[in-house]
């Protein structure tokens, strides 16, 4: 059995050796470095840094599901923007046979590369169009994208020779990260790089993102913020354990919904007004634009008195960047830049 | 026998039904029905199932609108069909066949419904005595606080009758009132109606398919078949074996009740004639 190296150069801090789980899907003895936080386990017993392309089959634990990739995937279907953008960032546009359920336009730097990728569905694709594409790997942004009523049950897809992978940040239930961090996100990039046989590209991507992240200026004082995604009657906001919290932490913002152990949560207006955040981050989506939210805040007499509204301290961020992915560091940089423009000092 | 030939001459105070018709999808359920009977009498409306008895009663109280040209139900010199709905409901009351009720309604509440035509939106008091009288007259006073749903068929019939009486009608219509009653209750009912007529000069029209009851207890009889009046007149003269054979398709023999001397009908299937 072939083996590949697992050298998570960027993740040593969170993936100390010796915390290995067991690989359920293969009979091979398990050792090596494990990205334990995601409950994902490499099934490889030896490490050779240049075996990536030939190190198949690879088995990883993904959202509690054992995924085995037995050859280098060359026909990849990406569901959701985060999935497609990670593949583009890894330079794999030519191996992506289709994309689906995109949340917004692809960022400019990848637009050319993405132009030839067919979008098979604006919503969550169903089983038949997926099978018709004859993919060998599906990378999905949400667990719900891989269900009998969407792309298909993961077990049945596997039986049909289609491996599937869900962004570990989006795992639900027991596999859900207790609190998402950038190192966890980077280890996802590494894991995908390994599955796709582009370990070097992944390592380079992580290194670059780490560098950018380290360069993000942090606020020099306590600044509270609300991350408002959608919902107008009852706002749907970033909670205390997901990507919004991770990104806010990176710039030194204090999330007023940090106490809610959810990635996203509904939050009553009363508690928002009571906490009176210094800044409001507005997610800009085609279905719930930032300007619409701004208008709502200014129209309601109670929210119009919020400090952030009175002093027009709004930060906007495109929806695809609000989910954990290759644009998360960008989102942090973007927010830091907007905060600086609003006059917040940083150190 | 020709329709109305045996009918008595009527005065302005009597009941005169004229030209009532009702069609559903081109089928005449009631076809140009006319008859006259004196006020203060009990008229039996007889005929086989589907003869149009229930429909005729609904036409007479305006619950259904007659399709007929020049339809009229004259009583006391007034055409009931030209009255306002409310005025009509104060003049004519209908005791329907067993009606079901989903709600928890007490007998008194059910009877109080009969006062609806008398009420205005701003006031409704002063009806208690009428309701008490109606309950008593119908023999339902003992259950005033019971739930209608807990009553037997005969008891419910009395409640429905009490509701109709609470309307203080001049004309009382009853649709197959004996259907769910045992023999004693049937006799009670007719005694009750007779008593009401005696005391209040009420005019009563009862749809029946029990010929014996009709012959025994009515003053006049109107025979319907296929929506048309095929005979009418004084009871029991208006009905003979030939008519019964034509309308009901059975042989009938009349014998005298040893007590009252009134005729009692004995039925046989056609072809089983014994005498």
């Amino acid at each position, binding site marked *: 059995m072939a083996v590949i190296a697992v050298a998570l150069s960027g993740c040593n801090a969170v993936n100390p050796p010796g915390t290995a789980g067991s690989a359920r899907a293969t009979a091979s003895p398990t050792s090596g470095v494990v990205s334990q936080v995601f409950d994902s386990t490499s099934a490889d017993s030896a490490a050779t840094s240049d075996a990536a392309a030939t190190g198949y089959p690879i088995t990883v634990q993904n959202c509690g599901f054992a995924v085995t990739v037995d050859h280098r995937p060359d026909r990849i279907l990406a569901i959701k923007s985060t999935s497609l953008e990670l593949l583009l960032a890894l330079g794999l546009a030519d191996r992506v046979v289709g994309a689906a359920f995109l*949340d917004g336009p692809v960022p400019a730097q990848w637009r050319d590369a993405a132009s030839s990728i067919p979008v098979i569905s604006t*919503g969550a694709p169903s089983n038949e169009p997926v099978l018709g594409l004859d993919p060998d790997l599906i990378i999905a942004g949400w667990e719900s994208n891989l269900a009998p009523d969407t792309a298909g049950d993961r077990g049945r897809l596997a039986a049909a020779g289609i491996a599937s992978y869900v962004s570990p940040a989006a795992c639900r239930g027991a596999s859900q990260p207790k609190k998402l961090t950038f190192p966890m996100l980077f280890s996802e990039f590494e894991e995908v790089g390994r599955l796709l046989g582009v370990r070097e590209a992944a390592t380079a991507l992580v290194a670059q993102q780490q560098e950018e992240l380290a360069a993000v200026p942090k606020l020099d004082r306590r600044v509270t913020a609300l991350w408002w*995604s*959608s*919902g*107008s009657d009852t706002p749907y906001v970033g909670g205390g354990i997901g990507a919004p919290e991770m990104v806010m932490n990176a710039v030194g913002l204090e999330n007023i919904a940090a106490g809610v152990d959810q990635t996203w949560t*509904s*939050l*009553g207006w*009363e*508690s*928002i*007004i*009571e906490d009176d955040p210094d800044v409001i981050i507005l997610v800009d989506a*085609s*279905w719930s634009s930032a300007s619409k939210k701004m208008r709502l805040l200014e129209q*309601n*007499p*109670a929210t119009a*008195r919020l400090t952030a509204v009175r002093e027009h301290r709004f930060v906007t961020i495109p929806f695809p960047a609000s989910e954990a992915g290759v644009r998360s560091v960008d989102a942090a940089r973007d927010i830091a830049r907007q905060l600086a423009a609003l006059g917040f000092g940083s150190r | 026998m020709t329709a109305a030939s045996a009918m008595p001459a009527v005065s302005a105070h009597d009941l005169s039904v004229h030209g009532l018709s009702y069609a559903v999808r081109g089928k005449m359920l009631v076809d140009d029905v006319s008859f006259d009977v004196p006020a203060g009498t009990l008229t039996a409306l007889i005929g086989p199932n589907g003869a149009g008895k229930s429909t005729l009663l609904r036409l007479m109280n305006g*619950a*259904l609108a007659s399709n007929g040209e020049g339809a009229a139900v004259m009583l006391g010199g007034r055409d009931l069909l030209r009255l306002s709905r409310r*005025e*009509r*409901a104060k003049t004519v009351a*209908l005791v*329907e066949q067993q*009606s079901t*009720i*989903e*709600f*928890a*309604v*007490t007998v008194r509440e*059910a009877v*109080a*419904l*009969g006062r*609806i035509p008398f009420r205005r*939106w*701003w006031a*409704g008091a002063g009806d208690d005595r009428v309701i008490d009288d109606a309950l*008593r*007259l*119908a*023999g339902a006073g*003992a259950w005033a606080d019971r*739930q209608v*749903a*807990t009553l037997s068929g*005969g*008891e419910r019939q009395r409640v429905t009758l009490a509701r109709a009486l609470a309307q203080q009608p001049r004309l009382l219509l009853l649709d197959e009132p004996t259907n769910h*009653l045992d023999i004693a*209750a049937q*006799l009670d009912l007719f005694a*009750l109606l007779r*008593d*009401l007529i005696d005391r209040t000069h009420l005019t009563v029209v009862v749809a029946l398919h029990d010929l014996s009851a009709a012959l*025994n207890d009515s003053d006049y009889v109107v025979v319907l078949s296929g929506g048309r009046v095929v005979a009418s007149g004084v009871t029991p003269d208006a009905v003979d074996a030939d008519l019964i054979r034509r309308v009901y398709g059975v042989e009938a023999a009349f014998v005298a009740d040893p*007590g009252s001397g009134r005729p009692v009908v004995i039925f046989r299937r056609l072809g089983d004639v014994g005498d």
Partner: protein
Amino acid sequence: MTSTRIRLPVPSAPSVAEGAGENPMPATPRASRRSSRLRGGPRAAVYVAAATTLPASVLLAVGIGSAGIGIIDVWQTVVAHLAGMPSPLSPLRDGIVWDIRLTRVLTAAAVGAALAVSGAVMQALTRNVLADPYLLGLSSGASVGAVAALMLGVAIMPTVAAFLGALAALTLTLLLARSLGPISPSRTILAGITVSAFGVAVTSFLIFWNVQGDSYREVLNWLMGSLAGSGWATVAVSWAVTAVIGIPLVLGARVLDAFAFGDTAAASLGIHVTRARWIFLAVVALLTGMAVAVSGAIGFIGLVLPNAARLLVGFRHRLILPLCALAGATFMIWVDTGARTLFAPRELPVGIMTALVGAPIFALVLWRHRSRS
């Protein structure tokens, strides 16, 4: 013949009339079970209690919320606003009390009253204790309108769209019911179920087809019911509609009584059955349409409260409707207070709360209803 009369109990004779209680009825009456409902003093007490509980509930509920504002401060704030004096609280907290909590509590009261009264009217018209406005497809129609406006970007406000959807659904239901033959309770309900199923399908289709990212969040409130969008505009709309429709409705309530024994009985009591039915159905459409437009589809209120009211005060609608309005308002205020505070700072759609609270109560009502009849 005279012999027959002699052995009768003569229930009608004046001499025995006073003794009707001893009247030996041929069909032996079962042990007379007196109804448990209230009359006289105790009944008046129910209305006094309901009429005092409602304003008390408004005052208390305004004092409850995730922001810890003392109840005395809350009341002072309300009084200050009413009297045109400066608020004792900071502008932000003043906004929480006056613009957020008070508008929400007042809207909840009007919506609860409207839904409970609508349910009572629907039950009377269809002679079905299990009926409520939702049975006629009103809520699903309203949801179609609201969701279409939100998802397709139809250029009208979701509230107006919900209202139009409710009216369209009612019209469709009645046209369908009439095309099946003369309008009857069962035909109306069957038509309502048909329209409702269609509306749900259209709503699901719109959501399925258009959902992007987390846009379904915007729709969730319409489907599960929420009063979180309340403001002074919703207070004005909900109270105006409830008062303008509710008061004449109570005054004309005895027409509803006439429907208890069916359409023919109602017609025999002088009611213009067809006209009355259309008027009442239109009234229900307006009340329900308003409620759904303001707060989304909230179930169980229209089902539970009329049944509870009937248990207490009998079936006369002049008694039922005011009690339904008062109790529905109070019920909704407290259920919504639970929805916004139990899991604060998170919020629960109030429709979930009404179902959680309402379903067991309704089971109890059913059980009692059964044991009595």
